[in-house]
C-alpha cells in the first residue's frame, strides 16, 4: 500500500511545479534556468519598449523639424529638462504629495464604507433589497457628473476632494465584496452544514477568506478610478495637487509642464496598478486555480 501511495504522490508532484522544484533542483540547473529567465525578460523588455521608443522618435523628429508649432508640441528634451527642474525644485514632489494624501484619505473613507456595505449586502438579502437599488442608482451617475453639484455644497476646499474620491472608491469595493459573497458556490454551503459550523465560524473560515481576493480586485479598481477622478477634480477646482500643476501649465501655455505632469500622472497610475495587481495575485493564489 505504501508504494502505491508514494507513486500517487509522485504523479501529483510532477503535476504541480512547486513541489517538483523543491524536490529536484540542482544548483547547475538552477543557474541555467535563471539565465534563460533573464534572457527572456530582456527580450520582452526590448520588444515592449520598441513602441514607446518609436513614438518618442516620431515626436522628436516632428518637433525638431517644426512640423508642429513648438507651442503645441515641445521637444522631448525640453520636457525631460522641465521634469528634472520641477523635481529638483521640489514643486513636483510637493504637488504629488498633496494629491497622494487626498487619494489616501478618500480611499480610506470610501473603501471602508464600501467594504462594510458589501459585507452587509452579501450577508443579508433584505438589506440588499431595501438599500441596494437606490445606492446602485445613485452611484451609476459617474463621479465627474457629481463634481459640479458637490462643488456647490462643499465648496472647492479639501472636503470636496475627499467626498468625491470616497464616493468613487465606494462602489468597486461594495460591488466586488457583495458579489463575491453572493456567488460563493452553493457547494461550500453544503460543506459548512455538514461540518456543523456556526454563523461565526462560517464567517471566519468560509466567507472572509473567500472575500479577500474580491477586496484586492475592488481595491485595484478603486485606486485606478480614484486617481482618475482626483486628477479631474484638481484640474477643474483646486489650487494644489498634480492635476492643478497640469492645468496651470496649460493656462500659461507651458506645454512642457503639461507633458511632464502627464508623464508623472501616468507613471504613478501604472505603479499603483502593478503594486495592487501583485497584492491581488498574492491573496488569490488559490482562486487562480479553483475557478470558484
Amino acid at each position, binding site marked *: 500500500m505504501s508504494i502505491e501511495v508514494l507513486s500517487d504522490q509522485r504523479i501529483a508532484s510532477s503535476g504541480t511545479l512547486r513541489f517538483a522544484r523543491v524536490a529536484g533542483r540542482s544548483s547547475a540547473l538552477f543557474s541555467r534556468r535563471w539565465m534563460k529567465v533573464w534572457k527572456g525578460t530582456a527580450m520582452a523588455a526590448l520588444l515592449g519598449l520598441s513602441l514607446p521608443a518609436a513614438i518618442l522618435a516620431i515626436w522628436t523628429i516632428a518637433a525638431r523639424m517644426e512640423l508642429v508649432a513648438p507651442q503645441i508640441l515641445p521637444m522631448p528634451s525640453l520636457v525631460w529638462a522641465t521634469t528634472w527642474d520641477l523635481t529638483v525644485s521640489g514643486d513636483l514632489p510637493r504637488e504629488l504629495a498633496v494629491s497622494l494624501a487626498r487619494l489616501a484619505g478618500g480611499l480610506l473613507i470610501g473603501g471602508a464604507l464600501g467594504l462594510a456595505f458589501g459585507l452587509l449586502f452579501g450577508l443579508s438579502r433584505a438589506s440588499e433589497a431595501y438599500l441596494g437599488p437606490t445606492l446602485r442608482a445613485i452611484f451609476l451617475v459617474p463621479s465627474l457628473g457629481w463634481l459640479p*453639484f458637490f462643488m456647490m455644497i462643499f465648496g472647492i476646499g479639501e472636503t470636496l476632494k475627499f467626498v468625491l474620491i470616497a464616493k468613487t472608491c465606494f462602489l468597486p469595493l461594495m460591488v466586488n465584496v457583495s458579489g463575491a459573497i453572493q456567488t460563493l458556490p452553493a457547494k461550500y454551503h453544503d460543506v459548512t452544514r455538514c461540518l456543523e459550523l456556526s454563523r461565526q465560524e462560517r464567517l471566519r473560515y468560509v466567507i472572509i477568506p473567500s472575500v479577500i481576493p474580491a477586496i484586492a480586485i475592488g481595491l485595484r479598481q478603486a485606486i485606478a478610478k480614484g486617481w482618475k477622478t482626483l486628477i479631474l477634480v484638481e484640474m477643474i477646482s483646486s489650487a494644489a495637487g498634480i492635476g492643478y500643476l497640469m492645468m496651470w501649465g496649460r493656462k500659461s501655455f507651458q506645454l512642457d509642464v503639461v507633458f511632464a505632469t502627464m508623464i508623472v500622472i501616468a507613471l504613478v497610475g501604472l505603479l499603483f496598478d502593478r503594486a495592487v495587481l501583485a497584492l491581488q495575485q498574492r491573496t488569490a493564489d488559490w482562486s487562480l486555480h479553483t475557478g470558484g
Partner: protein
Amino acid sequence: MFRHGFTLLFLLAAWQLGAGFGATAYYLSTPVQVADRLLEWSMSGYVWPHLLSTIECSLAGFGVAAFVGTLFALAMASSPSFARLLEPALFAAFSTPKIVIAPLLILWIGVGTLPVIALSALSSFFVIFYGSYGGLRDVSGSYIDTAAVLGAGYWTTAFQFRLPAAGPYILASLTQGLIYAFHGAILGEMTASDTGMGYLIVYSATSMDAASVLAALAVIGAVTFGLLHLLASATRALAAPLNAEALA
C-alpha cells in the same frame, strides 16, 4: 418592487421635508424643483439637443473604439510577436487616467464635438481592448487545433474560429465599452465643449442653479440605467447560443 424603491422614496421625502428648514435649499434644491425642471426642459425642448449631442458623440466614440479595440485585440491574440510588441505599452496606458489628454486635445483640436468624440473613444477603447483581448487570447486550444487540422489559414483561424469562440467575452467588453463611451463623452463636454449634458451641468453649476445640475444628473443616470438594461437583455439574447458553445 416596493422594497427596491423604499430607500429612494424615503430619501426623497426626507430631502423634500428637510429642505424646508435652514438655508440648504439654496444649494440642495428640492425633489419637486428638480422634477419641475425636468418637466420644463422636456416641454420646452431645451434638453433634447444637449442629450442628442451627447448620445451622438458617445456612439461615434464607441464606434471607433469598438472597431479599433477588437481589431487590435484579435491581431494581438493571433500573433504572439505582435502581442509582445504592443502589450506593455497598451497595458501601461490602460491604467493611466485618460483625462490627462484633455488639455492637449483642447490645444491640438480646439473646442467642439471632435475632442468630445476623441475622449469618448479613448475612454472606451481600453475597456473594449482589454476585455476582448483576454477572451480572444484564452480561446480554448481545441478550437485552434481543429482549425489547423481543417487546414485553415491565418485569417480563417482568426475570423472563423477565434473571433466567434470569444464572442461572449467580446460582447461583454463592448457592453462595458458603451457605458465608458457615454461617460467619456460627458467628461469631454465638461472640459471642452459648448453643448451636451456635460456642458449643461457645468453651465448650471457656474450659475449656481442646483435644480438644473441635479436634473441633468438624473437624465444621465436614467440613460445609463436604460443603457445597462438594454445591453443586458441584448447580450443575453445574442450570447445565449454562443455561451453554450464557448463555455462548454
